[in-house]
């Protein structure tokens, strides 16, 4: 080799070594080996169902029956020739059905979280649930829609699993590998009764909820749900009858929630042109400058009537009572000071502040702020090795609080119809996307405070970390140039009060 080429080729070697495209994932889920069976979960308080026996699960065939023996034989046959793909399916679902479905749901939210493009005439089409495959696709999974979706899936899963636990301990049918040592246990197996199969319950309840919430993804959802049931069978965790009973129970429970979702006010959340105009007129009548869309062409405000959507744990009276006071008047000296603070902050952002703005941006094409808190919760649930039913409880408490926070926050946003900083001072530019709805109070702050309150209750040792994340997520909106300090402070207080409802529910639900 010519001497002059050496440093050059060395540089090649160094750089190509640095171009390994392996991605480090932050949410690896090891096989779930639950810390507790939570055998009393069948008696934990229901939220929507009348009780665990609202849907009856018929008694299974005896472990000694010929029918059951045939089911065991079928598992053993399947286990003799598992393909690499089948083993990957088993490994995937061994991570826990509740957390896997939460990951899948976050992916669906991110995929569907895109605003409709404007038409040539400057108007915007509205996504149509009756025509979900059209352009624009349905839904536009923006933060309120996402909060609602996370909550429906989590609560429906939680109710279905509590019912499943009730029937499991009615019938005490053992797991296949405990009955027959010839059945391999390819997932961790415990003394949890196998009938009805919790994996099949989750498969059935989730597939129906997701088909209602993300109808355009029906093919993928159906495939995933079938995989989960297959994994339970192939792994020797459940027999065909365990799975059939679980699937039926899951689907029955889902029907209750699909019906609730159809009548919870979401259908009217977009609002009408007359309603949007009335919001502006009301603000003007109160001597305030009304919110105006800063998008071009101007876009109608996001889900103007979401504040009327049905909550989980608050009554309509609670929703009104817990509201924060009015924001500073748009003409007040305090507003001028807060406006100046936004301008000053954005123009003098430090590198760490900018990084915080991007860390918590959670804008279009992301899993949204509620998804971010599901992301945070997942790692705590995994590390605590929670059972499926307790995982579902944690996510149900979290996501009920965040849906209630979304409803509470949106109600206040459209009550005051307060302008964004960049509207009052056009020299304020933002380093993140500008949300297309009124400013006061901050949705991020409300979501994050509600979430941190619930997670601090469930994981007390994590409380300082949750509080720090709540504060960081909230102040990120000032760094981004899209919120005043009042929006953030009042939003945090509001979210904390709303989170308290979920904490009080959890304190009395029998799960402790």
């Amino acid at each position, binding site marked *: 080799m010519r001497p002059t080429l050496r440093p050059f080729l060395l540089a090649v070697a160094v750089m190509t070594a640095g171009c390994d495209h*392996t991605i480090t994932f*932050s949410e690896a889920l090891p096989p779930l080996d639950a810390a507790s069976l939570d055998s009393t979960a069948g008696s934990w308080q229901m939220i929507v169902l009348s009780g665990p026996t609202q849907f009856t699960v018929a008694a299974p065939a005896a472990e000694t029956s010929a029918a059951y023996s045939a089911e065991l034989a079928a598992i053993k046959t399947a286990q003799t020739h598992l393909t690499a793909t089948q083993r990957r399916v088993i490994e995937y679902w061994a991570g826990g059905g509740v957390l896997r479905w939460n990951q899948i749901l976050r992916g669906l939210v991110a995929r569907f979280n895109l605003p409709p493009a404007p038409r040539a005439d400057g108007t915007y089409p509205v996504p149509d649930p009756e025509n979900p495959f059209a352009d624009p696709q349905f839904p536009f999974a923006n933060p309120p829609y996402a909060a609602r979706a996370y909550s429906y899936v989590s609560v429906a899963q939680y109710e279905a699993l509590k019912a499943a636990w009730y029937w499991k301990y009615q019938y005490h049918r053992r797991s296949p590998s405990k009955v027959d040592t010839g059945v391999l246990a390819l997932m961790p197996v415990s003394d949890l009764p196998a009938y009805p199969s919790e994996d099949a319950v989750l498969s059935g309840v989730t597939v129906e909820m997701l088909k209602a919430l993300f109808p355009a993804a029906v093919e993928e959802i159906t495939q995933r749900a079938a995989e989960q049931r297959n994994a339970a069978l192939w792994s020797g965790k459940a027999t065909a009858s365990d799975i059939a009973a679980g699937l039926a129970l899951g689907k029955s429970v889902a029907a209750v929630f699909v019906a609730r979702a159809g009548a919870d006010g979401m259908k009217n959340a977009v609002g009408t042109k007359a309603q949007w105009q009335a919001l502006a007129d009301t603000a003007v009548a109160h001597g305030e400058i009304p919110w105006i869309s800063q998008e071009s062409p101007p876009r109608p405000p996001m889900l103007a009537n979401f504040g009327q959507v049905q909550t989980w744990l608050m009554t309509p009276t609670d929703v009104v009572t817990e509201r924060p006071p009015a924001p500073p008047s748009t003409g007040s000296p305090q507003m001028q000071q807060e406006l100046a603070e936004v301008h000053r902050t954005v123009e003098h952002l430090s590198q760490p502040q900018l990084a915080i703005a991007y860390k918590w941006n959670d804008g279009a094409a992301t899993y949204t702020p509620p998804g971010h808190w599901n992301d945070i919760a997942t790692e705590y649930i995994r590390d605590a090795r929670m059972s499926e039913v307790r995982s579902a409880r944690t996510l149900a408490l979290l996501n009920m609080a965040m849906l209630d926070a979304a409803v509470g926050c949106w109600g206040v946003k459209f009550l005051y119809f307060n302008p964004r900083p960049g509207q009052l001072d056009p020299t304020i530019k933002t*380093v993140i996307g500008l949300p297309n709805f009124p400013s006061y109070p901050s949705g991020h702050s409300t979501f994050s405070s509600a979430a941190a309150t619930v997670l601090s209750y469930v994981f007390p040792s994590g409380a300082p970390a949750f509080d720090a994340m709540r504060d960081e997520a909230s102040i990120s909106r000032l760094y981004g140039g899209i919120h005043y300090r009042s929006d953030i402070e009042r939003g945090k207080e509001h979210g904390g009060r709303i989170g308290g409802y979920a904490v009080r529910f959890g304190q009395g639900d029998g799960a402790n």
Partner: protein
Amino acid sequence: MRTANVLWLLLVPATMQAQTIDDGATIPRRTLGTGLVYAHESWSQYWEGTLKRDNQNIGTLTTQSVMWTGGYGVTDRLSVMTMLPYVRTNASQGPLHGMDGVQDITLAAKYQLLSTPFTDRGTLRAFVVGAVGIPASNYTPDFLPLSIGLASRQFSGRFTLNFQAHQGWFLNGSVAHTWRANVTLDRPAYYTNGQLYLSNEVAMPDVFDYTVTVGYQRGRLSIPISLSQQRTLGGSDIRRQDMPFVSNRMDFVRVGGQLMYTLPAPTKLGIHLGMSRIVSGRNVGQSTTLTGGVFHTFQF
């Protein structure tokens, strides 16, 4: 939407003592060339995937840069070069804030494999170039199209063939493959390629590019005209009404021309003016770029 590697494609021909990566010359031994190049790039239309559109929330996106460049002839066959741009972006409409900062430093070595008379009309030369790009500041690539760059460490291997006719015409062809390291975002998850990635690391697809240049060079004047194409070997399209993402498939075809002139001795100053335009693209802006540069050489 930004045109990745744009600053690598500036063409400065042989009279300028080989201060670019893809031209057909090396710097004479113990000669130092240094210069400053100003570039003004702007677009008001871009390709959202393959859909060409404008965006009233951006208006015209302008990227201005000032790049310092230096080159040194280690031997008559081996040159080393470096480039460091300062970049500023601005959107003429909408709420989004511009960004500015020092972008990526490029370090390159160019080696002349071959220099031989070819027919009786001129000289044929061949070169290999290795170039390393490293982000020189902690800028974010997560605010495209306002981000000042893609913040990926990269290495490119390049091969260049040059024919210089005695009468002054020249023909230059250059191909390169660029490997790019993973980019780290400030957020814990992102959506691209049809799936949610629960990670702050983004895999960056490789890039292939080529440039064909024809030109005339006589005395102190050089006029190259070039056609270049970049193809990103992977990555997804910007979805309808989505923002661009760092690992998008950014492809383009660009045409450009330059005028280079070396002032009479003893000034050792050279100037260049250039203009280029993207004629087709995917996930990039249809930009027009104007450049102006001043160069100086020192002999040791």
